[in-house]
């Protein structure tokens, strides 16, 4: 079967393209520029250079495809021009939906994010829960608007399923969207771990292989119009660092950052970012997000899709081995 994967050079997209290709599908991999490395090398992967903002390139890539995985999107903590979140994540998604509608594809899986819920206080959130805090950043809002657009096409008759991954870790290319991998890498290399003050702050960490399989399951068994949280275990910063230290045989001195300091550094970095255009290490908003709980419950995906969660220790062992074996590659920014 011919299947379109947008964002095919991305963290989730590239792994997904391979998983589909290995199963014998012909993958139409939409990328903005053809990757020079072996990232998408597979006889079943056909590379289409284009852009979700360019409708003509989409029409070419989607030709004869029966299914669409729309994973492309801007996943960043910050952008000098916040418009890019809306252009790519909202208008881009609308373009892909429109192309899918015109092509008459049978199923459409959209990769959203757990960001649509924001923080959770001390509760585990499920798919039907409302967002309890205002949209305090452009990424979350853009993904929410994109979901709205997906639902709108769903109500027109396009078979759509939305998947919501949380923070994702595991072997794969280092991208903006693999922040957890970069954090683990830093723990392996540096002696000091800077962490939010409350070490018991918990977030959900999903193993990349689970997330990729979850996409395939959502396409296979997902109910139209539904969304599924494709997560992992809810882990505190303390447990994250301790587990990395045990598996990676490293030792980190944990330095807890008081919220005020965290925020101040965020403000300084933000000014720096605005002045010279470099990505700030942290922004006040990101500091706030890192200091709030983001726990999720994946029971629905487990029940309805047969989704599987790799135990955190197991996933982390694979990840650390990968990161250590690819240290040279990871030296590059």
């Amino acid at each position, binding site marked *: 079967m011919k299947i379109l994967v947008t964002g095919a050079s991305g963290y989730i997209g590239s792994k997904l393209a391979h998983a589909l290709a290995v199963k014998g599908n012909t993958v139409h991999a939409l990328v903005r520029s053809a990757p020079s490395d072996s990232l998408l090398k597979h006889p079943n992967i056909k590379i289409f250079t284009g852009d979700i903002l360019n409708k003509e390139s989409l029409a070419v890539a989607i030709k004869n495809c029966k299914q669409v995985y729309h994973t492309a999107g801007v996943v960043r903590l910050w952008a000098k021009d916040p418009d890019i979140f809306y252009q790519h994540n909202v208008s881009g998604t609308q373009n892909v939906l429109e192309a899918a509608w015109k092509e008459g594809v049978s199923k459409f899986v959209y990769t959203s994010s757990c960001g649509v819920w924001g923080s959770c206080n001390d509760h585990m959130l499920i798919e039907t829960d409302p967002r*309890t805090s*205002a949209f305090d950043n452009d990424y979350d809002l853009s993904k929410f608007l994109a979901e709205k657009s997906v639902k709108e096409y769903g109500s027109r008759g396009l078979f759509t399923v939305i998947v919501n991954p949380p923070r994702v870790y595991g072997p794969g290319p280092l991208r903006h969207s693999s922040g957890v991998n970069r954090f683990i890498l830093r723990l392996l290399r540096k002696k000091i771990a800077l962490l939010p003050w409350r070490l018991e702050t918990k977030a959900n960490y999903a193993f990349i292989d689970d997330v990729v399989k979850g996409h395939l399951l959502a396409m296979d068994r997902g109910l139209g119009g539904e969304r599924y949280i494709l997560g992992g275990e809810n882990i505190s910063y303390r447990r994250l660092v301790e587990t990395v230290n045990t598996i990676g045989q490293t030792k980190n001195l944990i330095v807890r950052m008081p919220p005020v300091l965290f925020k101040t550094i965020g403000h300084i970095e933000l000014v720096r970012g605005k002045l010279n255009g470099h990505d700030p290490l942290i922004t006040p908003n990101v500091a706030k997000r890192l200091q709030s709980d983001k726990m999720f419950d994946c029971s629905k995906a487990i029940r309805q899709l047969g989704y599987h969660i790799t135990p955190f220790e197991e996933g982390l062992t694979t990840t650390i081995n990968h990161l250590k074996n690819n240290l040279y590659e990871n030296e590059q920014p």
Partner: protein
Amino acid sequence: MNNPKSNYTLITGASEGLGKALAIECASRRMNLVLVALPGSELHSLASFIRRNYFVGVLSIEKDLCRDESCRELFNEISSLDLNINILINNAGIGGTGLFENGSIDLYEKQIRLNVLATTLISRLFIDMLKRNRSAYILNVGSMASFFCLPKKQVYGATKSFIYFFSKTLRRELKQNNIHVSVLCPGGMNTNPAVTLLNKTGNYISRLSIMNPEEVAPLAIDGLLKGKPVIVPGRMNRVFLVLDKMLPEKIKDLLTGSTMKKINPDHSLVRYLSVVAEPGSGEQAIA
């Protein structure tokens, strides 16, 4: 009483924005809730979220309070269930920004019906029930627009001044019955996705004063339970109020004239409004 009824807090307009934040705040303070919002809103999912996580009683009722029969039905439903309302939060309201000549008659009618009439009717209907408590509370949601004559917010501002005077007067009347009436006057808030988008298009000063509902809600409930007559959340908003008392009219007009050109229709984000707002509603987003 041998068999006291459970106390409930009634919150109107609870499905989104400030109402949702107030519901969660009250639940976190162990209050049982009666939540009211428009049919078709996400009220029931909010109710089940609160039940699952806060272990309080939650009754959700879908009603369009623009219809005065709905206000009566609401009262009858609650009475027939034998629930005792000891805190009433009149939060439901319709906002909007735009020149008077561009707004529809329908919108203005709805604004007045919901912001003014529903608040008055519901307060009147529940007054006897509230009186039966040893002490009870009414929180009405006004706005910073209760104080200023803001261009593009004529009808809205007028309905909110009604709320302000109504609340302060009612407070004096009901003092002897131990019913504490407060009026909450928040500035701009990121109440829902459409308004959040619009708020991003404003200038620096107006963006600085924008608050999130989850920041306002705890201040509102704190102020209410302390019996404050007027609750103005946020430092920026309080600065605006002080300036209001100090500056001559001419200068105030100049200031509010420029800061309240909040919405820039040429802003690139405005086109994404169509994803969340009704087609054609443009500037008149519902707050």
